[in-house]
């Protein structure tokens, strides 16, 4: 048992240090001709990655080497206790281990915060969906991702130079903002394109500005008419106006709109006194 754990400890470690391109994987496969060792190293992968998923291991390139060795120790210690994980993933183990390891690395580097069952699922999906030839290119893309601060997943067949990447990020930001606006502006549906949504937003802003104008006109009318309605004495009028407005403030406060601090400074001249 000690021999086994020692061997399996050594095997995955050089692999993880190298960039997991196809060439290094073939080297790794050649190093371990015996399928038994391969199976066990894959087993270590499967216990290894669930442990490391919750840390954002793959986003910190600097400490990658040391932390990986630390985790390998952990996985070795807990390899016995991680049997249920292994049994649940026996089907995964039957697939060629090169691809499996590659898939786990790819998906975990992309989703460093996803939970362990998702890792194997995405791995299987990726394997079923993409061919091996294309994967090398998108694989390099994945490996570049952790170095940048923004995590954007490159889909298969998309251009991978920095300009289009920045363009994609920018478009993503704009779409996100549009989605927020969609929630705020009534009458925006998800199915509408950007042009229609912008039209709706423009209409809404215009209508709001018109409403402000209209309401200020109404206020003017109300205050002018109000002035006429009251008695001729200007001072009394002003006092009553101030009292009315203070009452209005209190009403608004009761509805929970105005804070106590804000009201206190306004109430300096009122007859209510300190609240």
């Amino acid at each position, binding site marked *: 048992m000690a021999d086994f754990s020692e061997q399996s400890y050594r095997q995955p470690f050089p692999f993880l240090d190298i960039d997991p391109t196809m060439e290094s994987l073939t080297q790794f496969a050649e190093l371990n001709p015996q399928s038994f060792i391969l199976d066990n190293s894959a087993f270590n992968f499967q216990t290894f990655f669930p442990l490391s998923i919750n840390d954002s291991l793959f986003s910190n390139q600097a400490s990658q080497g040391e932390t990986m060795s630390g985790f390998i120790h952990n996985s070795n210690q807990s390899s016995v206790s991680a049997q249920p994980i292994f049994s649940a993933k026996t089907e995964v183990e039957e697939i060629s281990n090169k691809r499996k390891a590659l898939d786990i690395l790819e998906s975990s580097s992309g989703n460093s915060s996803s939970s362990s069952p998702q890792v194997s699922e995405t791995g299987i999906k990726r394997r079923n969906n993409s061919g091996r030839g294309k994967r090398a290119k998108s694989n390099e893309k994945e490996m570049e991702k952790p170095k940048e601060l923004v995590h954007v997943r490159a889909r298969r067949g998309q251009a991978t130079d920095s300009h289009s990447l920045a*363009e994609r990020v*920018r478009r993503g*930001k*704009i779409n996100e*903002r*549009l989605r*927020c*606006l969609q929630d*705020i*502006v009534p009458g925006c549906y998800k199915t509408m394109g*950007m*042009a229609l949504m*912008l*039209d709706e*937003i*423009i209409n*809404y*802003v*215009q209508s*709001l*500005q018109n*409403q*402000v*104008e209209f*309401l*200020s*006109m*109404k*206020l*003017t*009318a*109300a*205050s*002018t008419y*109000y*002035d*006429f*309605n009251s008695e001729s004495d*200007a001072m009394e009028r*002003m006092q009553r*106006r*101030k009292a*009315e*407005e203070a009452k*209005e*403030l209190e*009403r*608004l406060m009761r509805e*929970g*709109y*105005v*804070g*106590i*601090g*804000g*009201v206190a*400074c*306004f109430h300096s001249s009122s007859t209510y006194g300190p609240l």
Partner: protein
Amino acid sequence: MMNTPQQVKNPSSSLKSRFITRFLGALTKINAEDPISSPSPTRIFQRYRRIKVASNKSMAYSVRSRRIWSRAMLSRFRSRRSAFSGRRSSVKTTNCTTINVTINENKTAKGGLDMQTDELRELVPGGEAMDVCNLLDETAHYIKCLTTQVQVMRKIVDFCHLSK
């Protein structure tokens, strides 16, 4: 009695409360300065403009300089104050048109949407100098402030009508 149970944040610093206090203060000032004796249309119109400006100003001051649009609005008010009636409008439009022209020349992608983003830029104060991403952000905040403004003003108007 210190914290009202309905409010989650610090009650005295919500946008709505700041706007209300400022706007009502401005309204009382307008009412005080302008004792209505004659209902001449010019006087009424002047009053309307003052109330409108007071409303927008109170909102801009409540937001302070935290947003591009509020900063633009505040600088507009300040330039207005220094330059009186004749020069006011010309200064504003020349600024808008020159900046608009340069931005149109520099635009690359999103061909068909340029018209709409330009329209949006005209609506949102200070929108001429923003890129699309910031413009959408500012629009969202501007809409939020406008709705607050409308809500408060409506309440005040209702109150004025009710109290008669």
